C-alpha cells in the first residue's frame, strides 16, 4: 500500500496547489469585464464569424476509415514479435484477421467510401 | 369412475364454441335450441352423477377426483386437469344446469327480437361453462380460472347491449370489482401454496387441521384473502356496488347470473373451504357480521327503489347476506339450502319481472305500472308465488330456509342477539319491499294508459310455471338436502325448535306484507274512486288521505331517508368513490410517468446516475 500512499500524497498536493492558485487569482485579481474584453483575442483583429468552420461530412468518413485501419495495423506489431511462439496457428489467425479486414476494405471501396465526389 | 362428469363441463363449452363460430350461419331458432340443448344435456348428466353418488354409501361420496391428464408437473408443483365430484359440487351442478336450462328456454322468448340472438346464447353457454368449472374445480387453480371466467362472461352479458352507454359502464364496473376479488383469490392461492406446498383441495383440507391451530395467522390471512374474492363475487359490503348497476343487462342475465348462480359463488367458496374457515373463528364471525349488515343495508335500500329490477337486485344482496350469515355461524348446509331455494324463487321473480317488462315494452319503473293482475294473470300468479317465498310466507320454500337461518342465528354456537334481531328486522323489510313492488305492479289501476300490456308467449310462461313449482315445494326437501350435504360438512345439522322465535319471524314477514298493503293499497286508486262516488263525504276521504300522510310521515319518510342516506353517502360517495380514486390514482401515476419520460437524453442519463448511486449505496452500506 505504500506506493498508493505516495501517489495519493502527490495527487492531493497537485489538486491543492492547482485549486489554490485558481482560487487565489479569482479572489485577488481585479475584474472588470466589458463586452470588448470578452471577445476572443485574434491578433487585434475583430472576429467576423464563428471560429468553428463547417467542412463536408466525407472528411470525417475518410478520417474514420483511416483510423480503423491504422489501429488494426498496430495490432500486428505484438503479433509479429511473438510469431515464433505462436507458430502456424498464429499465422492462420492473422490471415483470418486480415481477410476480415480485407472484406471490410472491399466493401468500403465498392460503396464508394474512398471517393471524394 | 366419474370421468363422464367431464361432459357436464364440455357440453356448454362446445355450445359456446359452436355458437360463437357458426352462430351467424345457422338459423336463429336453431341457435336458441342448440344453446338450450347443451345445458339440458349437461343437466341430465348431472342427474346421472347424482344417482351414481347416491348409490354409494354416505361416507364414500367424498373426494372423487376425475383427472383427464397431468397438465403441469415441476418438482413439487403439480397441476392436473381434474374435477372434483362430491355432494357439494353435484348439488351446485344441479342448480346451475337446472335453473340455467330453464332460463335458457325463457331467453328464447325474451330475446326473440334481438338481432344478435346467437351471440347472446353463446355468451350464456360460456357463462354456464365457467360457472360449472368454478364449482367443479378440484384445486384452487381451476377455482380461480372459473372465477375469472364467470367474471368475463358476466362482463360480456351485462354489456350485451353495447350501444347502451350505461350498460357498458355497468359492465366495466362489474369487471373491475370482480378483478379486485380475483387478486385476493390469487394471492390467497400463493399463500396456500406457500403454507401447504399444494393447491389441491383434497390435500390442503386434509392437511389443514393438523398443520394449524385455530386462529393461526396464516389461516386468518388465507381465509380473509379468499373472502375478498367471495365478497366481490357475492356483492357483500363493501364490494357490492356493481350488482344493482348490473341490472342494465338483459333480464334473463339478471336472473341467471345476478340471482341464481354467479353471485352465490362466494357462498359456495366458503362452503367449499369450510375446513379452513372452521379453523378461523374470527373470520367466521366477520363473515356473519358482514352478511347480516349487508342484509339490512340492502333491504333498507330496496324499500325505496322504483326500478323493478333494482328492487330485486337489492333483495338479492340482502338474501346473500342471509347466506353469509348462515356460513358465518357455521350452519353450512342451511346456507346451501337457502342458496338453492333462493335460486328458484329469485330466478322466478326476475323472470316474472322480465315478463312484465317484456309485456310493457321495456318499462321498468313501477310507478308507471299497475293493474297488471287481470292483463297478465299467469305472470301475476307466478310473481306472487315468488314474492311469498321471498317474504318467507309459511310453507313456501323461502319460509323453510330463511326461518331455519333466523333460528340458528340465535341458537347456534356463534349466534347472538344482534344477529337474530337484525335478521328478523330484515325479514320484515324483505316482505315489505317485495309486496310494495307487487302492489304497485299488479294491483290497482293501470297508471300509464299508453302501454298495451300483453301476456308473454308460452315459451316464457312455461319456465315461470316450472320455477313456481319448485319454489313452492322445494322447502319440503330440506331434510333430504341436509342428509345429502352432511358428509361434506362432516356433521348432521342440528334442528332447532323454538316456536316463539318462529312465530316472531313469521310475524315479521306478515307484518311487512300488511304494512305494504296498508300503504300502497289504500292510496291513489281508492282516492280517485272515493272522489267520484262519495263527493259529499269528501272530507272523510280527505281524512283517509290524512292517514296516508301519517303513514307517510311515520314510516315511509324515515325509511326513505335511511335508504337514501345509505345509497347516497355509503354507496355513491363512499365505495364508488374509493374505487374511482384507485383508478384515478393509477392514471395519475401513469401520467406522472409520462412526464418523467421527458424525451431528453440528459434526463435519461440522470435517471441512470440516480440508479447507479442507489445501487452503490446499497452495495456499500448494507
Amino acid at each position: 500500500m505504500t506506493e498508493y500512499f505516495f501517489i495519493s500524497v502527490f495527487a492531493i498536493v497537485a489538486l491543492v496547489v492547482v485549486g489554490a492558485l485558481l482560487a487565489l487569482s479569482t479572489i485577488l485579481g481585479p475584474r472588470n469585464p466589458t463586452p470588448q474584453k470578452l471577445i476572443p483575442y485574434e491578433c487585434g483583429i475583430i472576429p467576423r464569424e464563428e471560429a468553428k468552420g463547417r467542412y463536408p461530412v466525407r472528411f470525417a468518413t475518410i478520417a474514420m476509415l483511416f483510423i480503423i485501419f491504422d489501429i488494426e495495423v498496430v495490432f500486428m506489431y505484438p503479433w509479429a514479435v511473438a510469431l515464433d511462439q505462436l507458430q502456424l496457428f498464429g499465422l492462420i489467425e492473422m490471415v483470418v484477421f486480415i481477410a476480415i479486414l480485407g472484406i471490410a476494405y472491399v466493401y468500403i471501396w465498392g460503396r464508394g467510401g474512398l471517393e471524394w465526389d | 369412475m366419474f370421468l363422464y362428469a367431464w361432459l357436464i363441463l364440455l357440453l356448454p363449452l362446445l355450445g359456446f364454441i359452436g355458437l360463437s363460430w357458426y352462430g351467424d350461419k345457422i338459423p336463429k331458432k336453431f341457435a336458441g335450441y342448440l344453446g338450450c340443448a347443451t345445458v339440458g344435456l349437461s343437466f341430465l348428466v348431472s342427474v346421472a352423477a347424482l344417482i351414481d353418488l347416491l348409490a354409494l354409501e354416505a361416507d364414500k361420496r367424498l373426494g372423487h377426483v376425475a383427472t383427464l391428464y397431468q397438465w403441469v408437473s415441476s418438482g413439487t408443483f403439480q397441476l392436473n386437469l381434474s374435477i372434483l365430484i362430491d355432494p357439494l359440487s353435484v348439488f351446485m351442478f344441479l342448480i346451475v344446469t337446472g335453473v340455467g336450462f330453464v332460463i335458457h328456454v325463457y331467453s328464447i322468448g325474451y330475446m326473440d327480437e334481438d338481432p344478435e340472438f346467437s351471440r347472446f346464447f353463446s355468451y350464456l353457454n360460456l357463462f354456464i361453462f365457467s360457472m360449472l368449472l368454478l364449482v367443479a374445480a378440484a384445486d384452487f387453480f381451476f377455482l380461480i380460472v372459473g372465477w375469472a371466467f364467470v367474471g368475463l362472461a358476466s362482463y360480456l352479458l351485462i354489456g350485451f347491449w353495447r350501444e347502451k352507454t350505461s350498460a357498458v359502464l355497468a359492465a366495466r364496473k362489474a369487471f373491475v370489482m370482480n378483478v379486485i376479488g380475483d387478486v385476493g383469490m390469487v394471492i390467497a392461492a400463493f399463500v396456500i401454496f406457500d403454507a401447504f406446498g399444494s393447491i389441491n383441495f383434497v390435500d390442503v383440507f386434509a392437511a389443514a387441521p393438523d398443520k394449524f391451530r385455530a386462529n393461526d395467522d396464516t389461516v386468518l390471512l388465507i381465509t380473509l384473502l379468499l373472502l375478498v374474492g367471495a365478497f366481490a363475487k357475492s356483492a357483500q359490503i363493501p364490494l357490492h356496488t356493481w350488482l344493482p348497476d348490473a341490472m342494465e343487462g338483459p333480464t334473463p342475465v339478471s336472473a341467471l347470473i345476478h340471482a341464481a348462480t354467479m353471485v352465490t359463488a362466494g357462498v359456495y367458496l366458503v362452503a367449499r373451504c369450510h375446513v379452513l374457515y372452521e379453523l378461523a373463528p374470527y373470520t367466521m364471525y366477520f363473515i356473519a357480521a358482514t352478511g347480516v349488515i349487508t342484509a339490512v343495508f340492502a333491504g333498507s335500500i330496496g324499500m325505496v327503489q322504483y326500478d323493478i329490477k333494482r328492487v330485486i337486485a337489492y333483495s338479492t344482496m340482502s338474501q346473500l347476506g342471509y347466506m353469509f350469515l348462515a356460513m358465518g355461524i357455521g350452519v353450512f348446509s342451511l346456507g346451501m339450502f337457502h342458496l338453492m331455494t333462493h335460486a328458484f324463487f329469485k330466478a322466478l321473480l326476475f323472470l316474472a319481472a322480465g315478463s312484465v317488462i317484456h309485456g310493457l315494452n321495456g318499462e321498468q319503473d313501477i310507478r308507471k305500472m299497475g293493474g297488471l293482475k287481470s292483463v297478465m294473470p299467469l305472470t301475476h300468479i307466478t310473481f306472487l308465488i315468488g314474492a311469498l317465498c321471498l317474504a318467507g310466507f309459511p310453507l313456501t320454500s323461502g319460509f323453510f330456509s330463511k326461518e331455519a337461518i333466523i333460528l340458528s342465528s340465535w341458537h347456534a354456537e356463534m349466534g347472538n342477539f344482534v344477529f337474530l334481531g337484525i335478521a328478523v328486522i330484515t325479514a320484515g323489510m324483505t316482505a315489505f319491499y317485495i309486496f310494495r313492488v307487487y302492489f304497485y305492479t299488479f294491483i290497482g289501476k293501470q297508471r300509464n294508459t299508453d302501454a298495451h300490456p300483453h301476456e308473454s308467449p308460452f315459451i316464457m310462461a312455461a319456465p315461470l310455471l316450472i320455477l313456481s313449482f319448485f319454489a313452492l315445494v322445494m322447502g319440503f326437501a330440506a331434510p333430504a338436502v341436509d342428509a345429502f350435504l352432511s358428509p361434506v360438512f362432516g356433521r348432521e345439522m342440528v334442528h332447532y325448535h323454538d316456536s316463539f322465535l318462529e312465530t316472531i319471524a313469521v310475524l315479521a314477514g306478515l307484518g311487512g306484507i300488511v304494512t305494504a298493503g296498508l300503504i300502497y293499497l289504500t292510496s291513489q286508486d281508492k282516492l280517485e274512486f272515493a272522489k267520484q262516488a262519495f263527493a259529499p263525504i269528501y272530507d272523510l276521504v280527505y281524512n283517509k288521505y290524512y292517514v296516508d300522510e301519517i303513514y307517510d310521515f311515520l314510516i315511509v319518510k324515515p325509511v326513505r331517508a335511511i335508504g337514501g342516506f345509505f345509497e347516497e353517502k355509503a354507496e355513491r360517495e363512499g365505495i364508488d368513490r374509493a374505487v374511482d380514486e384507485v383508478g384515478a390514482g393509477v392514471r395519475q401515476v401513469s401520467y406522472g410517468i409520462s412526464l418523467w419520460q421527458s424525451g431528453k437524453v440528459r434526463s435519461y442519463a440522470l435517471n441512470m446516475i440516480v440508479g447507479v448511486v442507489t445501487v452503490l449505496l446499497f452495495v456499500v452500506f448494507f
Partner: protein
Amino acid sequence: MSSLINFDDMNWIALAPELIILVTALFILLVGLNKTLNNNRYLSQASLLGIGAALVCSLYLWNMAPTAASGTQPGMFSNALINDRFSQIFNVIFLVMSLFAVFGSVRYPQADNENKAEYFSLVLLTVMGMMFLAKSGNLITAFISLEIFSVSLYILCGFSAKHGTGREIASDKVELSWETLSSQESTVKYLLTGAFASAILVYGMALMYAGTGTTEIRLIGQLLRENPYTSNLLVYIGMGLMFCGLAFKVSLVPFHSWTPDVYQGAPTPITGFMSVATKAAAFAVIARIFFIALPEIQEIWMPFLFGASVLTMLVGNIGAVFQDNVKRMLAYSGIAHAGYLLIGIVANSQEGMASIIFYLAIYLFMNIGAFAVVFIMEGEGQEGNSINRFKGLAKRSPLLAAAMSLFMVSLAGFPPTAGFFGKLYVFVAAIKAGYTLITILAVIASVISVYFYLRVIVMMYFHEEDEEIPFTIHKGMGAIVTVSTVAILAFGLFPSSLMQLALDSIPF
C-alpha cells in the same frame, strides 16, 4: 513460455452456428455491392438460408452439449466461451427472433434505400453478438460480444431514415418525413445512453477483476466460495456497476427511459426483434454472472434486484396505461416483463433459471406475434401505430383480431394461455425460494396490465372503425402470426414438455 496457446479445448464445432451466421453476414455485405443482387428478395433469401442452417446446427449441438450428468467440461477456448445447453437454447431464441426482422424486410429497408444489404448484414451480426454473449464464460468476451450486438443495433434503429451516401451538400434543405426524424432520434438516444451504460458496465468488470484477480465467470464463483477474502468491497461495487450496465440492456427501472422512445422510433421489425432478443441476451449474461459467479454473496445483491424488479413491474405496467401508440405501449409492457423475468434471478435457484428460459421462450412467441400484427396494421406518420387503427378489426379480419386477442391475453397472463404459465413458473420458483412478497406485488402489477392489454381487444371488438384502413398480410408475417398462435396454444395446453426442456438447459 512454450504453451501459450491451448489447442485442446478449441471446440470449433460448437461454434458452428456463430460461424455460419458470421460468414452469411460477410457474404451479404459483399453481395450488396452488386447492383442487381442488392434487392430485398435475394438478400432475405440468403439470410434465411444462413439462419436456417444455424438453427439446425444449434438444435443438433443442444443435444450434443455437455451437461452436468455427462461429466465433460463445458468450457472451451480457455474458458472464454462455454458450450452448454443454456447457450444453445438461447441461440435458438435469437435466431427465431431474427426471422422477424428478416420477414419485416418487405417494408424496411425502403425501396429507395441504397443500403439494403447492410440491413441484413447488421441483423445477422447482431444475432452473432448475442450468440457469443450467451456463450461467454469470461467477462471480457461478454463485453466484446455485448458491444458487437449493441453497435449493430444502434445503426439498425436508424434504418428507416433514408441513407444518403454523402452526396448531398450541407446546405441542401431536405424535408424529412416523420419516420426518418423519429428513427434518427431513436438511434441517437440509444447510442448516447447505451454508450453511457457500456462505460458503467466495463468499469464494473474492471473492479471485479481488481477485487478477485480474474475475469473468468466460473473462477469468480469458485473463488468467492473458497476464499473468504475475495468477497471485498471492490467486488461488491463491481457487481453493482455491472448490474447497472446490464440493467440498461434489459431496461429495468430506472435504466429504462430510453426504451419507449427508441422502440417507437425504430423500424417495427427492429423494434420487435430487439424487444425480445436484447432482453434474452442480457438475461443470459445476467443469469450467468449472478447464478454462476455471485450466488455466494446473494445477500448483497438480493435487495437491489428485488427492488429493481418490483419498481420495474410497477412502472412498466402503470406507464403503459396511458399510451395510445401501440409500439410505445408494447415498450412499456416489455419493461414490465423484464421485471417479471428478474424475479427468476431473484429466486436464485435452478428452477428460477429454468423459469427464465421458459418465460423467454413464451415471451418470444407472444411478442413476435403482437409485433407482427402491429407491423401488418402499420400506417404512415406519427399516427401510424395509433391504437385507434385497431378499431373494428374484428369485423374486417376476424382471424387477425382473434390472433391479436390471444397475444394480448397471453401477455396479460390469463390461463390457459402460455403467458400464464410463464408467470406461474417464475412465481412458483420465487415462492419456493421464500419470496412470497414479490409474487404478490407481481400479481398486483399484472392486474394493472390487464387494463391496457384488454384495451386493444376492446378496440378491435367493441368499436366501429372510423375509416377504412387498408392493410395487407405479407406471407412471412402471416406465417409468424400463425406459428405464434399455435405455439401459445400448444404451450398453454402442454407446458410441461417445454419446462422440461428448460430444466435441461440451465447453465452450469
